[in-house]
């Protein structure tokens, strides 16, 4: 595994750990989601450079489009939860407990 691969694995793993261990604010979870997508984007961009193929060069743009849509949806949900729950504190998300 080269140094490049290691950096992407660690970036993605750190972001996913940040998503898993978020504590108070919803927006930190959304931020970690975005950083996962960013690391995937850079990894996808490096791939056709490493393997010298020119056909998957458009894949990063497509991936970025979808992740932008997802980020927008996440922010819309943040706004909606701020309107109904009052804040984005995750402690307030307990209406649906068993």
């Amino acid at each position: 595994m080269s140094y490049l691969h290691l950096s992407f694995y660690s970036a993605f793993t750190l972001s996913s750990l940040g998503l898993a261990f978020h504590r108070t604010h919803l927006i930190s979870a959304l931020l970690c989601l975005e950083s996962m997508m960013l690391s995937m984007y850079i990894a996808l961009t490096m791939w056709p450079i490493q393997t010298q193929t020119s056909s998957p060069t458009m894949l990063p743009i497509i991936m970025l489009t979808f992740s932008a849509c997802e980020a927008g949806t996440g922010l819309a949900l943040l706004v909606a939860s701020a309107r109904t729950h009052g804040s984005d504190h995750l402690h307030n998300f307990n209406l649906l407990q068993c």
Partner: protein
Amino acid sequence: TISSNHWILAWAGLEINTLAVLPLISKSHHPRAVEAATKYFLVQAAASALLLFSSMTNAWHTGQWDITQLTNSTSSLILTSAIAMKLGLAPFHFWFPEVLQGSPLITGLLLSTAMKFPPITLLYMTSSSLNPTLLTIMAILSTALGGWMGLNQTQIRKTLAFSSISHLGWMAIIITYYPKLALLNFYLYTLITTAVFLTLNTTKVLKLSTLMTAWTKTPALTAILMMTLLSLAGLPPLTGFLPKWLIIQELTKQEMAPAATIISLFSLLSLFFYLRLAYCSTITLPPHTTNHMKLWHTN
């Protein structure tokens, strides 16, 4: 997602699915619906990112993006966890009852049947390279947790969520050995669950106490609901028994008889709450649940 050969297209299909169903969940702007939508979004987005990561790992190690050739073992492990998160298999099932509870009934139907179809298709397409041990552990855990956690529920949507989790356990245990049986199980489960959800939508019942008075609205429909619930439980001679029987037969052929025994014992737990639902819908007259001294809690 179903007809794709390239991982990026599969990922794009799953993303579109997630984004499309989110407004359906939060349509009514009730706080519970918004909270359910937020939880659904976080889980599904994280699972999609993990899926993309596993396909990227596979691409780096093998040089290609074909779905049917997932040969790297790390990447198949990560893929299995990502799809388990999307489906609601234990130990990634914690979001599913709450999301199903917060969504309207027809959207709940969509969430438990149609939204499970693409991840199961992905498992079907990669089934030859998945790790059987991990899937067996997740399947047994799913049937156990689905049975145990569904026992104390009075909200019907949460009960149906736990029934979905246990059925997914049955599907996951057979997918590496005989994937077509998993698909058969999924189709039959979809059919029966659609019937249950549509019945509940017609009579507009959401809780166990409402279910007890539903027979006054449509007596024939509640009688059929009892049969449908027992079919979900997997009792012969109803249809729901067929996938369980075939799965147990296939597992014993693959020298996995202990796993087959454990999984059928755990589905006895879910039989209890199906029976309770059937009992409350057809055999009792409100407000008395039984003629005996012990009363079931219904509110």
